[in-house]
């Protein structure tokens, strides 16, 4: 780790002000940022911890929308997002207890790791990412691996999830990291089905449009029978080929449909 300054403001305004500095970077649970700093792959001049901002923590539900503060950790979501059971279940499967008690939803979405779980939930839920300065529709938010629509110094303050009729997240774990080798989040709303897939694509989390259409017409795994995800944009690595991941997209989508409740 290199030396850095550390500030821990208690309001969003103070945090935003502190982040005006070019070298400053927000810190939430630190489950991604701290390891990369320890390996000297990342060297922020100032860490602006968001953990002191109580207003960014917690979960509320009103008018069919579940709102999660940007600095809410995974363990809290697992325990308290009962209004959206598939989301609570997703949070309960992230990492291990230490990770779940530190890592946050805002950190996860801002980081947009191509194998992370929350991006699939947000995209499948048509969520709105609320920041200190604006609201971003999730379809505009993710812009490829590790890239989002966030500006420098912009922080996620909350995420609004419209609660679906039924939903399920099915994660097939990468054997080493236990992140998603391929994870599929399926939701069914009155106006249609959304399918978001993480872990599989070179472009990061994506929606599987053909499956959404077929499942909107017939919400059953059988509806997927004739469909296939093309393997050309899929990831090939030590843990699976593009072809295997494309296959898993379909298998996990079918399982999510079958398990949705």
């Amino acid at each position: 780790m290199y030396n850095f300054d550390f500030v821990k403001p208690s309001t969003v305004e103070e945090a935003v002000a502190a982040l005006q500095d070019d070298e400053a970077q927000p810190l939430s649970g630190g489950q991604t940022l701290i390891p990369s700093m320890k390996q000297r792959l990342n060297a922020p001049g100032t860490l602006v911890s968001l953990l002191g901002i109580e207003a960014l923590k917690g979960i509320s539900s009103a008018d069919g929308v579940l709102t999660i503060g940007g600095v809410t950790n995974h363990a809290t979501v697992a325990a308290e997002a009962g209004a959206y059971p598939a989301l609570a279940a997703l949070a309960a499967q992230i990492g291990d207890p230490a990770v779940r008690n530190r890592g946050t939803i805002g950190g996860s979405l801002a980081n947009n790791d191509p194998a992370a779980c929350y991006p699939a939930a947000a995209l499948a839920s048509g969520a709105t990412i609320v920041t200190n300065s604006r609201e971003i529709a999730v379809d505009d938010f993710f812009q490829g691996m590790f890239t989002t629509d966030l500006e420098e110094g912009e922080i996620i303050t909350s995420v609004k999830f419209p609660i679906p009729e039924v939903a399920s997240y099915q994660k097939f774990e990468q054997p080493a990291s236990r992140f998603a080798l391929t994870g599929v989040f399926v939701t069914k709303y009155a106006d249609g089905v959304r399918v978001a897939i993480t872990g599989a694509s070179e472009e990061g989390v994506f929606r599987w449009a053909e499956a959404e259409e077929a499942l909107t017409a017939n919400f059953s795994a059988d509806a997927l029978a004739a469909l296939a995800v093309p393997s050309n944009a899929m990831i090939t690595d030590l843990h699976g080929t593009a072809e295997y991941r494309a296959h898993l997209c379909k298998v996990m989508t079918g399982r999510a449909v079958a398990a949705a409740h």
Partner: protein
Amino acid sequence: MPKDGIGASTKRREDIRFLTGKGRYTDDINLRGQAYVHFLRSDVAHATLNGIDTSAAKDMPGVLRIFTARDFDGVGGIPCGWLITDRHGQPMQEPKHPIMAEGKIRHVGEIVAAVVAETLDQARDAAEAIVLDYDELPAVIDMKAAVQADAPKVHEELTSNLCYDWGFVEENKAAVDAAFDVAAHVTTLELVNNRLVANPMEPRVAIGDYAAHDDSSTLYTTSQNPHVIRLLMGAFVLGIPEHKLRVIAPDVGGGFGTKIFHYAEEAFCTFAAKQLKLPVKWTSTRSEAFMSDAHGRDHVTKIQLALDADNNFTALRTDTYANMGAYLSTFAPSVPTWLHGTLMAGNYRTPLIYVNVKAVFTNTVPVDAYRGAGRPEATFQLERVVDMAARELGVDPAELRRQNFIRKDQFPYATPVAVEYDTGDYEATLDKGLELSDYAGFATRLAESKANGKLRGIGLAHYIEACGIAPSNLVGQLGARAGLYESATVRVNATGGIVVMTGSHSHGQGHETSFPQVIAQMIGIEPDQVEIVHGDTANTPMGMGTYGSRSIAVGGSAMVRATEKIIAKAKKIAAHILEASDADIELKDGKFSVAGTDKSLNWGDVTLAAYVPHNYPLKDLEPGLEETAFYDPSNFTYPSGCYICEVEIDPDTGKVTIERFTAADDFGNIINPMIVEGQVQGGVAQGIGQALLENCSYDSDGQLLSASYMDYAMPRASDVPMITVDHSCQTPCTHNPLGVKGCGEAGAIGSPPAVINAVLDAMHRAGKPVAHIDMPVTPAKVWAAMNH
């Protein structure tokens, strides 16, 4: 009788300190004024190193000194402990293994420079300011490509990348080939034994310390064998005589072989401490461990089994490429040869065997012994080819094995690969395994799995290992550059308590619990009267340490011999006090009595007399009660067993889950059944890791792809089922005093072929026959095998 003597499942006394955070590991040691070293390691696999510019770095804050290869002129290379003689009678090619890269870089992770600074961060900062001038060379990674005539050479001074071409038994080659020519059936299998990283929980640590007042050096290190490190480092690398060098390996958090070897970092810290007159400490990060701890396995093998028309094995031949990595680590050359070739008979009567091994240098981390060392590689290929033969011939794999077993009445049995098994009963472990695994009830479980849309398979494997390493005169003939005896000093204190100073080292094996059980049994006192001291060359006799499942068989035997001397002397003292003759003294339940009388003395009366020799035969007997014994075994020990694995496969994803696992072992006599069960469970977990998860992978440029836990999959509790462990089949070893065989490696040896045989069986039963699948059988690989 003591209530916790031999055979009692006493809880491990050491666990109290480990589980409550009171262990004292090397990294817990901090010496006053210590400096820290950060090693600058190469991030390229193969390069000519033209220069190292330290001018900016050396003036950075806190930097005490920067070392490069030039500072080690006059210092030896890291020695190799075993010389292999090849098929043509020539010695292996043995390149220098420098402490730091000398003009050439040969693997990712090789040390190029070392920065010693007041703090670790200062050392790391300065290392970043070092400028390397190098020209990258094409990397040599694939073993078969490495031995082609036009391959780039890892070591220019050698004739090729071939370390040795070993044939065993060379004189049998023609007869073996002839047997294949007339065989009724030949089964041929090509396979890979995947490269592994041991990953003990505690990474390696070294602290060098120098005392100017007596010109002596001390090394604190994470070692399985501090005396071996003292010998190798003192005599061959740094030129420090043993009486000026102390090596301390305190609590060690797992070794699995990878902490046997002498590493450059140990020599560096000892050397730098003397140069700087300051303690110098290094603690490996996990990232460093992946690229600097010796790796394990990495064999590519073709094996062939010849059978006659009645399905008797008539001959076996193998062709193996064994990866040495860039340099020869301490025991590396012995692993694919004497620890592998000699095991190729397995549990079978195969009369003719020929093993060829080509050991190859590549631009990768050195490869050496890892739990089982050579024996898992032998067992895997043999038990795979036997299973494959059974399938090809349409016979039950259990029965094909039974038919070819060495029978109970044939022991001692001399195999065609130079070893003589003293005892064994392979049918007994097979029958026990079949019974405990409910082999007969498999069909019911298969039907249940099918109903759930899953594939199910059952696989078995038998193993034999050669443990209790090893008779020194024999291994000396085979090229070992050390003896392999073990030692113990038994010190009885005046008030009767006992301290045993052993050359064996405990780093998870539970010596501190099981060794006292033996002494308690011999004397008839409780084990808590006995303390085990190990891990410090200053207070233990010269011993060779812990590996090769040798602690109880060799170290325990030394302790028994020393205790026998103690008892003999104590009886003389008792005889004197009781005014009887030595021969009439009996020791039972901690009491000396004169046979046929009611005259007796307690253990403590005699020990006190030894140190307060008022009424004592001083003319004939020295005072005191302390004895040392060195034990050199007359043969290896040969544990064996039957492992049966049952798996389910999810056909949609290819994911394999282990549903049942049974281990029926013959370890001879057993001191502490609970510890033995734990050793088997741990070994099986590692074997399951190798079979399903673990794979150390390089790309063709020599970059380590699986360089962290993000990509190197370790087994976790959820990957390992409840394991049924049985060791009721016992054919005691005939040549050591305890009749013990050793159990440390069995689990890791027997389990991989059982798992793979089960996976292939499942595919076969599901109408998706696959002849072979290489480890680890990841979901992606299984799915691909079933769908292509």
